[in-house]
């Protein structure tokens, strides 16, 4: 054991610039992928131009990652004398002058038509940040910022004071369970890897799964983009605990910004001896190599992912032997998800008891006894405040959707919430008071999964949602085992005919039967859970399937074969906008007279309804 890692880290910290500066006012532009898409890059340019023009040069300019409230990007935070920041929403480049007027006290936010919130806003108030402690605060490209916020303190402290077995015990006691979907206790996994290595003599390896494939979930991207050093530190702690000196990050190619930031962070950590040989002067060495995914959902399966890492097609194998015993190139392999690893340094620095005190159940004796800590959800879809929310396990869906998310926009009704990605399910309004944790959601027929939470309003057709996921999985099934490959095609055919208005009596029962067979006989979790979106929509919205089959009607107004668009003559002002926009030339009428849709020509694209300013187009 060594006793100098902490001292070395302190020396590093003292020689770094740090982020807690003395400037009275600092301004941060949030530059995550979402922010950049909404124009944050242009906002930053405009801010810089204004800044160099004089008069406000005492204001410190910074950039950082996503602040979480994605639907109001671009966002700019302003902090005075180190107090909690005020966040300005929708600050596009044309609003930068207004923003500076506001900061300089020349005009109020209201006068500038700028919406400003603080962490007391309902969106932030109910959140509890563990993984996102540094979100929107540090510059992800600056190791100095990370160090000033306490990065690598956990690593240094275990190198000085804990042996590997103690680290595993600490993680097990914290109750940390895998955030990628499986919910398997991280400490138990690490411990199995050590046993496998002792038994077989294989050299252990740690892999970070950053192939965030669940559609509708993007917390891992945000963590990587806003606090990459938390992942590097989490992996290093894991490697020390299991006795590995090699680590891999398998990241999707669809995340170019995350990859760039991560590569830079690894380089910085190497330069300062936080990675590489003899880390912080101890005898612990650890290197990280990045592998890029190439777009295959099935690579979320541990064995498929590790096959893909060896430059092969990512096909899973049967798990008679777990990857923790024989994984990457036959070696004992720990595979942890990004969010799981981001929790690890926090648990080490603040203690297992602190972590276990957050969330549900008593995990002190057995990590399976509850869900400790927080979970990040991507709260998206038909929701007012769309974004990434980190909540303590155990709060209800209602609190997340209505208190934090602000409910459903456009005066529509809540219909369902989809959780768990393609392996999960939908939950209806009567389940809104369920507490969100690993076990409760599974009992209700869905699952927590990686944390996608897609809210749907009353204009969402549940049969189409089921078909959407089956279509996704049919595409992503690797085709190796028959139940998954053929079962998905069979289910797809039935759903297609129901949506086309050709559903038959007995179709619902047939779907249930196929789902059961796939669950019992597929090779990997993709196939075993593939029917969940169908089964859960049938369980909670059976009447909607029946209406499609018996009455040939789609109540949500989405299935083209079962609906008609109609112009309400009383509302129509004859503005001709719908006729101009109709791609099928199916709308007739003269200026200032009510228009009519020719049902023969209509392709039911809904364009007329979208462009109408008078609510004159209805769906029948």
């Amino acid at each position, binding site marked *: 054991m060594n006793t100098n890692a902490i001292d070395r880290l302190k020396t590093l910290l003292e020689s770094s610039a740090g982020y807690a500066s003395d400037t009275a006012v600092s301004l941060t532009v949030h530059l995550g*992928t*979402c922010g*950049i*898409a*909404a124009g944050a890059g242009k906002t930053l340019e405009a801010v810089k131009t204004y800044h160099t023009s004089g008069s406000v040069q005492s204001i410190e300019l910074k950039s950082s990652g996503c602040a979480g*409230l*994605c*639907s109001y*990007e671009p966002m700019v935070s302003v902090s005075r004398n180190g107090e909690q920041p005020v966040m300005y929403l929708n600050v596009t480049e044309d609003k930068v002058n207004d923003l500076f007027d506001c900061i300089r006290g020349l005009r109020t936010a209201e006068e500038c038509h700028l919406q400003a919130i603080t962490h007391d806003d309902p969106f932030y108030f109910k959140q509890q940040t563990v993984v996102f402690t540094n979100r929107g605060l540090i510059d992800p490209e600056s190791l100095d910022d990370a160090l000033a916020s306490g990065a690598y303190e956990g690593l240094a402290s275990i190198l000085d004071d804990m042996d590997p077995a103690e680290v595993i015990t600490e993680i097990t006691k914290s109750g940390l369970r895998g955030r990628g979907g499986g919910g398997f206790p991280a400490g138990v996994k690490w411990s199995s890897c050590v046993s496998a290595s002792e038994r077989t003599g294989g050299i252990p390896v740690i892999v970070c799964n950053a192939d*965030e*494939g*669940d*559609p*509708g*979930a*993007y917390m891992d*991207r945000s963590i990587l983009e806003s606090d990459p050093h938390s992942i590097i530190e989490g992996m290093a702690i894991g490697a020390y605990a299991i006795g590995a000196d090699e680590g891999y990050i398998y990241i999707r*190619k*669809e*995340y170019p910004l995350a990859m760039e930031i991560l590569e830079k962070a690894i380089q910085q950590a190497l330069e300062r001896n936080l990675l590489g040989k003899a880390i912080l002067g101890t005898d612990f060495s650890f290197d990280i190599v990045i*592998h*890029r995914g*190439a*777009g*295959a*959902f099935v690579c979320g399966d541990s064995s498929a992912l590790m096959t*893909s*890492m*060896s*430059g*092969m*097609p*990512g*096909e899973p194998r049967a798990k008679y032997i777990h990857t923790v015993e024989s994984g990457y190139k036959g070696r004992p392999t720990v595979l942890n998800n990004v969010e799981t690893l981001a929790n690890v340094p926090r648990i080490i620095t603040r203690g297992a008891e602190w972590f276990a005190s957050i969330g549900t159940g008593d995990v002190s004796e057995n990590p399976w006894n509850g869900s400790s800590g927080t979970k990040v959800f*991507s709260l*998206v*879809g*038909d929701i007012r405040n*769309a*974004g*990434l929310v980190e909540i303590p396990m155990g709060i209800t869906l209602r609190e997340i959707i209505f208190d934090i998310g602000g409910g459903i926009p456009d005066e529509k009704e809540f219909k369902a919430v*989809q959780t768990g*990605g393609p392996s999960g399910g939908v939950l209806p309004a009567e389940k809104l008071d369920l507490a969100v944790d690993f076990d409760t959601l599974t009992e209700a027929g869905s699952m927590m999964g990686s944390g*996608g939470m*897609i809210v*749907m309003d009353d204009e*969402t057709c549940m049969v189409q*949602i089921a078909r*959407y*996921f089956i279509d*996704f999985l049919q595409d*992503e099934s*690797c085709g190796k085992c028959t139940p998954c490959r053929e079962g998905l095609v069979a289910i797809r055919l039935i759903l297609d005919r129901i949506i086309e208005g050709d559903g038959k009596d007995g179709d619902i029962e047939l779907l249930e039967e196929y789902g059961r067979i796939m669950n019992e006989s597929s090779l990997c979790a993709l196939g075993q859970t593939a029917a969940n979106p169908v089964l859960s929509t049938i369980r909670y919205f059976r009447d909607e399937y029946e209406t499609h089959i018996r009455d040939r009607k789609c109540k949500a107004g989405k299935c083209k074969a079962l609906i008609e668009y109609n112009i309400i003559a009383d509302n129509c002002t004859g503005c001709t906008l719908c006729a101009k*926009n109709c*791609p099928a030339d199916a709308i007739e009428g003269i200026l200032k007279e009510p228009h009519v849709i020719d049902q023969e020509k209509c392709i039911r*694209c*809904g*364009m007329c309804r*979208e*462009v109408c300013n008078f609510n004159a187009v209805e769906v029948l």
Partner: protein
Amino acid sequence: MIDLKQVDAIIEKWNTDPDFVIEMMQDVQDEFRYIPKEALERIADRTDKPRGKLFHIATFYNAFSLEPRGIKEIQVCMGTACYVKGAPEILAALERELGIRSGETTPDGKFSLLEVRCLGCCGIAPVITIGNEVIAEVRPSQVSNLISSYCKS
């Protein structure tokens, strides 16, 4: 014929390590906008991998195309949030506007239209990308103007 020197440079960037053939193929795809047969064979020969295995990889992963793709790739995100917020209508509008189906390239080679699985921008759904640019909260009625502005540029 393609310039195999470019392919060799890519292979050497990854130290001719067979574990990184997927990365090599991604770089080839970025360079040529598809995976030319000669490039696939070159990677196979130099990394000692069977050509059939690389063909398997090229057809297994969504990122690869064996046909040349357009100068600008238009990706329509089909993640769940985008789907719920109307991505199918946007795809249909793009198909009408470009006169091609999803997965195809326009005859002039300017645009390829692709569906992708979640770009991870769910908070600003529905999104599409044109080239490297991410466009947020797209409406079907904007599609026509979007395409013509890219045609001009």
